[in-house]
């Protein structure tokens, strides 16, 4: 993992603000193929994450990688977040971390 650049907390809607940059988000996996995973972001958007996911994959997975466009991420790091995760909590965090409190994170 490239540890030198910080990753912005994003949900589906915020991804477009960070295209080309390092982001992190949690998705709920809806489909997984070799080479890519489709999932629902914490704010309900469909996202595609390309890369090699770990196997087995839990329901929620955090991905850290580079945003390719407003609905896809090329993942560098995958972390299984288990099957019970508070998505709305995380979603609120994304909104706060991109709002007036950005300076605490990026």
């Amino acid at each position, binding site marked *: *993992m490239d540890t030198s650049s910080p990753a912005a*907390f994003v949900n589906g809607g915020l991804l477009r603000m960070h295209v080309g940059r390092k982001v992190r988000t949690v998705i709920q996996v809806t489909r997984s193929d070799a080479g890519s995973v489709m999932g629902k972001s914490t704010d309900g958007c469909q996202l595609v994450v390309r890369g090699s996911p770990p196997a087995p994959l839990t329901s929620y997975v955090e991905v850290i990688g580079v945003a390719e466009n407003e609905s896809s991420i090329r993942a560098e790091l995958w972390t299984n977040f288990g099957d019970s995760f508070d998505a709305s*909590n995380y979603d609120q*965090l994304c909104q706060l971390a991109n709002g007036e*409190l950005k300076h605490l994170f990026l």
Partner: protein
Amino acid sequence: MQANEFDGNAAFAGGGFMPSQATQTAPDRPSYSSKNSDARCLTPVTVKQLKDLSKVGESGISIDGVDVNNIVLVGVISKIDNAVSDCTFRVDDGTGWVECTKWIHEHVDSVEVDVISVGMYVRVYGQFKSIQSRRPITDFNEIAHHFLECIYVHLYNTKLRPRMTNATDGMTAQPQVANSNSGNHIMGFSHQTNSTNQFSNQYNTDEEQIRGISSMVLQYLRRPACLASEMGVSSDIVARELNVSVDKVRKTLDFLASEGLVYTTTDDHYKFTDA
């Protein structure tokens, strides 16, 4: 404190997270001078906050005006160097990375260290110079929670603490958050923090006279969402959100209207005056 209110301070108060706990309602806390109690508290931080500190080059460590000695970090281990007397590892929390050192004095320490591996999420407690303990994370909601705590403490330190030391009467002592039935606690924090400040400074004498439901209704109407709506809020909605009977709410709103604190827009819709 009213039964329905969500006291953010109490929610985060466990484990000494909030600075100057002496001024809060917890009765069993002895009252230290503020410098002492700050140094005893554990502050959640992001690595970015720590990096900003060292850029400024302060020797007495403080964040947002609060002396910080003990900190909590949550992140992923990206590197481990295990030596005989100590273990150095790198923690990356997405906002940057920081080197941490754990001194190994006893067998217990080395057992702790063996459990940690690269790529694992951990929560780290320690002092800015050295790290005392860390444990692996199993519930990943902890990660979001940690960052939300960082945000809360930051807002508390920058917005509410200055007000608290300036306030002359006891009403402003508690950074209370009004009833948030919607379950959207976090949004409630950032908005209510601001409105409570303005509220308490301008309307102190009014608030002393208006008790119970009135202050709850007022706080509800002062929410940004309510202020922004042209039509105002109907008394039904207020009653439902505050969990109070519609009758009581209507009576309260009538009273507030007669005091000039709210006004009616259309039938049964109310807005806070002087938004």
